[in-house]
């Protein structure tokens, strides 16, 4: 029996400036199926979803709903057809309650809506307090609110954009159960992801994108993760062999009973964080964003001053009250999670961006910039770290995420740091570049550097770290040797089930 095609895209193309984000995409989504859109960052998944949801408009091609061509000029057009979307970075309003958030999309009186939220929650395992303010909810709960908000409009097609990227492993299981129940009710689901195992576990159809083009249409259950990866990145999945036999050396970074009150209502208070990072060691800090990662990174880098000097010690010196320059002079470097605006100045050339942290490498004489040194440093960084762009004079903002990250990381590594803090090293970076970055970090460790990595990607942490800590609600767990722990154990810490 052939299921009816609910949504059909034929030859859909979309171009942004010189970038062909989507090229002649054909896609067919059937009622009651969970259809995966698989692709790396930058493969055009998000653009495609925006076209379907009416946020963007295709340059070419047509979209049909139940066989009839439709014109989607704005999101409300898509909603009217029965298309619901759960965004990767949620479209919720933090200062409003759950009911208020839902009532912005769903007609009805608040009391009725609260009842509906409760009913739906019980039916699909989406439990959430209707009167809670959104800013008090965990990421998983926020996602539930967003899904509930879509479901109350009785969608025939539900789009989820990278829904698992922000969830701990336990919540992913719950989400999958919910999605299967929805599928059983006849709802079609478009599931966007770059995580192969999840897609194989959940989806019955998959469309693979690479560089804006469809490179495969398969039943993911019938293919191995390796096959899917090959379709996704066009070559074999790169491998990273890691082993650390060396004994760690002296303590390079010590956090001693580090407590810090939150700065705003939406910040996180850090409580008694203790950590010893030694030479020749990579320590990873896992946890869901918003549990104090930003505060911790700012306190270590010196952007925030700790309340007492001894709370942060670098190379044996109490530097808690010192600024970033002082800490860098001791041999510390820092790669922040925001590439544009903090890691690099978008409007400045790469060469000038080098100057920002590498000015101590002979780039200055009497306050004047020695352009030749600046240029050669930048050129060396670009060669060593495979930064693909026109040259040292290219604007930082014009580089792709992966290339810019390689540049920033390269710049900091070239300073030969004794201690390094890297925040979200491979966010939005394609698999090839991510592997290269991880390999570099391992190399540095083998050369005796001490590295602290803050990341949301558990797999990445397991790949490169010797010891894992988990940050949950501003408290840091004890160190778990990466070789002896499991994703489930770390996940339990991430949601506060273990302390």
């Amino acid at each position: 029996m052939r299921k009816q095609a609910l949504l059909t895209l034929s030859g859909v193309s979309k171009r942004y400036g010189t970038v062909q984000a989507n090229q002649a995409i054909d896609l067919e989504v059937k009622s009651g199926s969970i259809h995966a859109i698989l692709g790396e960052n930058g493969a055009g998944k998000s653009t495609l979803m925006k076209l379907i949801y009416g946020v963007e408009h295709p340059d070419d091609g047509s979209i049909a709903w139940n066989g009839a061509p439709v014109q989607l000029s704005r999101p409300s057009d898509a909603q009217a057809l029965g298309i619901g979307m759960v965004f990767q970075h949620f479209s919720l309003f933090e200062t409003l309650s759950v009911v208020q958030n839902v009532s912005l999309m769903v007609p009805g009186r608040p009391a009725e809506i609260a009842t509906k939220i409760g009913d739906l929650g019980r039916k699909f395992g989406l439990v959430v307090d209707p009167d809670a303010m959104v800013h008090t909810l965990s990421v998983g709960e926020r996602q539930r609110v967003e899904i509930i908000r879509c479901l109350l409009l009785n969608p025939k097609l539900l789009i989820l954009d990278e829904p698992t990227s922000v969830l701990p492993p336990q919540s992913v299981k719950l989400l999958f159960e919910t999605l299967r129940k929805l599928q059983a009710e006849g709802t079609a689901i478009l599931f966007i992801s770059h995580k192969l195992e999840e897609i194989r576990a959940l989806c019955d159809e998959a469309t693979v994108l690479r560089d804006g083009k469809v490179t495969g249409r398969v039943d993911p259950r019938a293919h191995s993760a390796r096959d899917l990866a090959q379709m996704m990145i066009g070559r074999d999945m790169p491998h990273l062999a890691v082993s650390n036999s060396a004994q760690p050396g002296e303590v390079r970074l010590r956090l001693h009973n580090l407590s810090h009150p939150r700065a705003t209502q939406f910040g996180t208070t850090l409580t008694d964080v203790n950590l010893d990072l030694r030479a020749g060691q990579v320590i990873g800090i896992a946890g869901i964003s918003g549990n104090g990662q930003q505060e911790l990174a700012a306190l270590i880098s010196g952007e925030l001053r700790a309340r007492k000097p001894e709370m942060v010690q670098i190379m044996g010196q109490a530097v808690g009250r010192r600024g970033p320059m002082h800490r860098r002079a001791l041999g510390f470097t820092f790669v922040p999670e925001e590439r544009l605006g903090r890691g690099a100045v978008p409007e400045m050339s790469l060469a000038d961006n080098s100057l920002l942290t590498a000015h101590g490498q002979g780039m200055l004489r009497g306050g004047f910039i020695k352009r030749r040194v600046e240029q050669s440093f930048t050129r060396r960084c670009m060669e060593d770290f495979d930064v693909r762009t026109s040259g040292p004079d290219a604007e930082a903002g014009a580089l792709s995420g992966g290339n810019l990250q390689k540049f920033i990381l390269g710049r900091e590594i070239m300073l030969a740091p004794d201690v390094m803090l890297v925040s979200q090293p491979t966010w939005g970076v394609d698999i090839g570049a991510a592997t290269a970055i991880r390999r570099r970090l391992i190399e540095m460790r083998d050369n005796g550097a001490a590295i602290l990595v803050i990341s949301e990607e558990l797999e990445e942490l397991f790949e490169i770290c010797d010891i894992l800590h988990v940050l949950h609600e501003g408290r840091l767990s004890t160190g778990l040797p990466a070789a002896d722990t499991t994703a489930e154990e770390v996940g339990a810490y991430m949601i506060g089930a273990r302390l």
Partner: protein
Amino acid sequence: MSAVEFLLAGTLAAALPLLLAALGEMVVEKTGLLNLGLEGMMAVGAAIAFICVYHTGAHVLGFMAAAIVSAILAMVFAFLVILVKANQVAAGLAIGVLGLGLSALFGKTYESLTISGLPEYGLPLLSHIPLIGPTLLTQDIVVWLAVIGTIALWYVLNKTKLGLIITAVGENAEAARAIGYPVAVIRCAAVAFGGTMCGLAGAYASTVYTPLWADGMIAGRGWIALALVVFGTWQTGRVAFGALLFGILSLGELTAQAIGVAIPSQVLSSLPYLVTILMLVVISRHQFRASKRL
């Protein structure tokens, strides 16, 4: 008339221009914009209203004309900021300066001319209460309408879906757009509302409160209204309270002069502005402490 009676009788009227302009700006800021052109929009409204009333004698026409012209000026701001995506601080200041200039231009030939104000009405029964009856509870029609309007605005912002939408747009415009709200249209409407309110505020100042035309008669009230929005933490009730407080302060100056307190009048007339600065300091200190305590 004692000083107390004088204050009771005059506070609401003195506060009214501040109240209207601040409430208008509050709605604008709730949608996530900041229009710094209050002073200019009030000044244009004041000039247009005065000219209208001078020639026709009808206050209704004066208020309507002022509302329309100030709203048009506000739409210039909306066009610059929402459509052309200009910097809103620069655009707001430009609108303010433009408004002041237009006001001086229109009002040039009317300098020092006077018109008649509006009669005052006592509330039935209540106006027989001693002391407050003939003073606080006897006001002109615009004051009574403004009281009703303030309550209505509170209701709309806090109890209706429209209020929810305005808050949502201001908090996260990206999300509001994603779930299908026409953010630009909502913001345009808010800016137009803000302009209208400034026009009415200016009209009241020039045709009722002091029915006499003098260039620069708004005298910084637009800036005070702007500070009031922050002072009132974007809540209707608190903004209204702040406006009353400044109404009393501005009268206190006159009272003190009448009683003959030996303070230079310049000090007294700078009082509302000094208090504005003081309040902003106190508020931000309070927020700073609150964040340290957490």
